[in-house]
């Protein structure tokens, strides 16, 4: 095991760990907004089904809610590119 580790090229471990870190950063950042967007859209659909005449207003507010929630996932997406070994 140890002699296999010793054969690693310089910086290979760092590159691998960076790749793992990027995956964790984006994956972690997507959990909360995933649940959040699900809640926003689900409740908007319920509202539209109950009050079809209010659908236009609900849709505008839904897109606003999605935009605010989604921003957190996108921060994670950008951060995963910024992280470099």
């Amino acid at each position: 095991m140890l002699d296999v580790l010793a054969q690693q090229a310089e910086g290979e471990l760092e590159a691998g760990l960076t790749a793992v870190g990027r995956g964790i950063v984006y994956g972690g950042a997507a959990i909360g907004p995933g649940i959040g967007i699900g809640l926003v859209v689900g409740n908007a659909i319920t509202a539209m089904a109950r009050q079809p005449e209010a659908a236009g207003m609900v849709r505008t507010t839904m897109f606003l809610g999605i935009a605010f929630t989604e921003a957190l996932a996108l921060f994670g997406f950008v951060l995963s590119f910024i992280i470099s070994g």
Partner: protein
Amino acid sequence: MILGLEFPPISHLVEWPTLFGGEVFGVNKVVLLMWISVGLVFALFYVASRQPKLVPTGVQNVAESTVEFVDEQIVQQTIGPDGRGYMPFLLTLFTFVFICNLWELIPLVQMPVNARIALPMFMAIVVWFVYIIVGIRHQGLFGYLKNSTIPPGVPKAILPLVAFIELIGILITRPFSLAIRLFANMLAGHLLLVTFAIITQSLFAATILGGALPLALLIFLMGFELLVSFLQAYIFTILAAVYIDSSMHPEH
């Protein structure tokens, strides 16, 4: 290198060589596309309004339905009837962002201008200046500060913390998230299309039948990206309108 698939580094996908110009003011493909978009937005509304007809046809039809969409779906829904004064600003913003995004799907061009942070960041800064100046003009400097940082009905004990968070939100988080949202969405869409194009190409090289499935998915994703580029232009504009509205009509 994943399963024999050669994927180029991210910088290779969004960085373009300088075509002409010096070190500082070098012009590359993205800047060129941005200039073309400016020209297209100008030409659209200039040609449409040069000889207006009572029954719109062609270009005038496109321009009029854009104006109607921005007025009914964005301005009236957020600011209300007295937001008509901000129509020209929001209309230009919507059309420009949409055309810049559309370059993602045009064959042989296929580079969304907003996938580089410079343009979204600049537009977010412009929106930042607009809503702060509108707030100061409508409520005065101290009125704007007080109305936007002190929400009604907050207990006195946590008021300093809430006021600080609200202030950070208005000064930093709003423009930052506005820029990042547009930028990251367009970059993600671009990467998605590139990934599926590469998979299609390498599977075609292996077996012609194997390339059919990713190709079908690629075509589907291009339709999806058309939706995303429209939606991002809509969201960028509607958030600008919401921020202007919160500067014009403070909550009591």
